[in-house]
């Protein structure tokens, strides 16, 4: 396998952009990443798109072929990958593989999404019967996505004594980090009291403890070692890159299932834990070597639970770590210096790409007021509907 490097990264701001088409968001992110790489559209030898979930041409979401047809009809191969909110991470993995295999020298991965307001509705195309659990969860009990995460949160409170204040503190940290990120949707400090006073969505989760559905787009340009040397500047290698699916017996209450056949010897959120394990193994390091993580904090519970699921902390240890500042930017494991889904915002299929952008900015020392000092190894972790997981490890 040939080594793969980051040539350029770029993102559109996260927010609500009702007057900006999804394709425009994608082109803006691609232009920023190409500019960062010092390349033109015609230099790309391949493009991978994370297939968007909520809009896009021809009824199949945003696709890379649509992007090149809009801006540069060079005839390059394109590839479109699904995977729900993990699609961005899976797209980076596909682009990585095209270069690692020696087929291409320069390949980009892009994600762009415009999200509907409020609770995420059921996607079209499935029958109205028991074969579609996304249908069942609505008609039998109206279980919204936050309800699933709330069940996990309540169980954590029972198992480890996690308090409402600690959960709120996770959201406070994400908001504080996002203040120093010009691309973040929310850049305003909030207090534990404000989080706890915000509307209850699914008890014990308040609205400020749940990801903010947003519009956004991000792109990364990957290349061979020769291409990275041509670009100049700090060399950032994709040291680990993996995808995974869920394992039988995973105890997670997975959206949109109505049951789980939980087995105590199977890792929780196994699709992401599996990807993280593989990405770390490829990078030749373990959780103890990672300087910062960008993880998919759909809720405050994820900020606490995921570092434990992936071996960064012991089960139940995250509460202490968070309260003692160890997840802060200057802590032992900075979590989501970008501001995370809770404050940077969430734009589903674009998120896994944005995470990799943030890792690259951190490792190059370009993260401004949210810079993790001396970061050498950084990891992303993202989960997608349908038991999809992806993880990327970058090395400076």
């Amino acid at each position: 396998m040939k080594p793969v490097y980051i040539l350029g990264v770029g993102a559109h701001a996260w927010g609500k952009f009702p007057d900006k088409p999804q394709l425009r968001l994608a082109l803006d992110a691609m232009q920023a990443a190409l500019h960062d790489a010092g390349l033109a559209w015609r230099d790309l030898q391949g493009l991978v798109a994370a297939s968007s979930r909520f809009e896009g041409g021809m009824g199949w979401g945003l696709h890379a072929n649509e992007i090149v047809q809009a801006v540069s009809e060079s005839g390059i191969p394109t590839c479109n990958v699904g995977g729900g909110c993990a699609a961005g991470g899976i797209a980076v993995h596909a682009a990585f593989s095209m270069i690692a295999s020696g087929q291409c020298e320069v390949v980009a991965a892009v994600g762009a999404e415009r999200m509907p307001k409020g609770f995420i509705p059921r996607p079209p195309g499935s029958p109205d019967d028991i074969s579609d659990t996304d249908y069942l969860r609505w008609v039998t009990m109206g279980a919204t996505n936050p309800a699933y995460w709330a069940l996990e949160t309540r169980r954590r409170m029972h198992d480890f004594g996690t308090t409402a204040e600690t959960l709120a503190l996770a959201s406070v940290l994400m908001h504080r980090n996002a203040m120093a990120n010009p691309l973040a949707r929310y850049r305003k400090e909030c207090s534990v009291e404000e989080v706890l006073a915000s509307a209850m969505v699914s008890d014990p989760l308040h609205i400020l403890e749940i990801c903010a559905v947003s519009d956004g787009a991000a792109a990364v340009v990957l290349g061979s070692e020769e291409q990275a040397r041509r670009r100049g500047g700090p060399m950032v290698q994709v040291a680990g890159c993996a995808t995974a699916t869920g394992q039988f017996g995973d105890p997670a209450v997975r959206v949109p299932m109505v049951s789980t056949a939980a087995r105590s010897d199977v890792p929780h959120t196994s699709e992401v834990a599996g990807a993280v394990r593989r990405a770390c193994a490829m990078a030749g390091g373990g959780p103890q070597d990672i300087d910062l993580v960008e993880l998919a904090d759909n809720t405050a519970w994820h900020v606490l639970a995921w570092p434990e699921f992936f071996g960064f902390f012991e089960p139940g240890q995250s509460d202490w770590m968070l309260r003692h500042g160890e997840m802060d930017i200057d802590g032992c494991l900075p979590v989501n210096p970008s501001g995370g889904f809770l404050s940077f915002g969430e734009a589903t299929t674009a998120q896994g790409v944005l995470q990799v952008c943030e890792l690259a900015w951190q490792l190059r020392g370009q993260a401004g007021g949210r810079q993790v000092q001396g970061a050498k190894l950084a990891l992303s972790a993202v989960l997608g509907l349908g038991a999809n997981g992806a993880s990327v490890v970058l090395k400076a």
Partner: protein
Amino acid sequence: MTTLQQASVARDLFQGSGDGARLIGTRCAGCGTHYFPKSLSCRNPQCDDKQVQDAVLSRHGVLYSYTLQAYRPPPLFRMDDWSPYLIGLVELPEGLRILGMLRGCTRDTVRIGMAMELVLEPLYRDESGQEVLTYKFQPRMAAGATP
């Protein structure tokens, strides 16, 4: 399973009524794993048999976790006289944890570890006047059952 005036939210989901109410799932004859709702195949990677059969599930279980759904869900969900309600995760002896609405308890009385039982209850009355039933779980004491 239902009278002329009653229908279920989805076919092949549950059967019976009153104390005889049961969820319908699947059991793999090869490895014994249960699934809910009925599944096309066994999902155990160690199992090569994958001969799945319909199986009715236990009516009793233990509450593993719960939440209060405080916002009205989007329109695919229908409920007459909507107000915030509890959703729970109930662990059955078959090793399955089942998600469902709770009744007979409140945010203040519900506790993880409670003994629960399955009940069928109307969610709403449809355009033809039929009551549409869903499955719920309630604390066993609330039904007058011995704990």
